[in-house]
């Protein structure tokens, strides 16, 4: 599963850059879907609520500006080989290679200060 962190990185882009990024993004997602590697994905609304603790307190957040905010997700289907390589921290380089080669990384072609990061983790089988 990919979790897209940070959801206000697009604010520094011009309309042209933004359109370009959107087109690239859609093409990337479509390619992965066609290859059967991406299962489902959705953007999330920028803000939500957090429920925590014994008293079930409801608070605002995370806020869109926060770096750790999750902007969206999609589920990717790794090959069986990369799944077995995944679980321990010790073999992260293998996982990295698996990520790069299995998914193909999104390569935005725009000059920008875009700071998008992706959290890549696999769901428990």
């Amino acid at each position, binding site marked *: 599963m990919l979790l897209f962190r940070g959801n206000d990185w697009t604010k520094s882009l011009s309309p042209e850059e933004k359109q370009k990024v959107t087109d690239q993004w859609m093409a990337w997602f479509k390619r992965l879907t066609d290859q059967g590697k991406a299962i489902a994905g959705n*953007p999330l609304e920028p803000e939500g609520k957090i429920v925590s603790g014994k008293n079930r307190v409801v608070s605002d957040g995370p806020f869109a500006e926060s770096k750790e905010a999750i902007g969206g997700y999609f589920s990717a289907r790794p090959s069986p080989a990369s799944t077995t390589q995944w679980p321990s921290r010790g073999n992260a380089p293998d996982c990295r290679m698996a990520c790069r080669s299995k998914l193909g990384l999104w390569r935005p072609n725009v000059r920008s200060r875009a700071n998008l990061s992706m959290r890549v983790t696999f769901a428990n089988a």
Partner: protein
Amino acid sequence: MLLYRSSEWYKTLSQEELQKLINQNKAWFERLTSQGKAKPGRALERTGVTVSGKNGRFVMDGPFAESKEAIGGYLMLGVETIEEAIAIAQGSPSLAYGGSIEVRPVAEDCPLDIRARELAREEQLVNA
């Protein structure tokens, strides 16, 4: 969508407490599923990497399970309002032991599209 944060709080629980929580969680999830309110949800493995930078050149381990940014799992809900989603999150048995749940509406539109439309409108206003 519910995102489960702080994924390692359960490590302090005893065997009995853990078993009790597992049973409560299972009952909670089954109830939501039978009401048609819970869609697929999964736990996530405790390890992963973060890819960032232009061209995805930085690939780093983390965030680690013990950090507060870590997401331990997710659950997609089939409800219409955030209030209903919050009420469901508040019913989660695991809250009694720590951790927190992020409740986020799934967006109709990609934020990129929305922002592009906003900018186009602003430009129109300036030109008008």
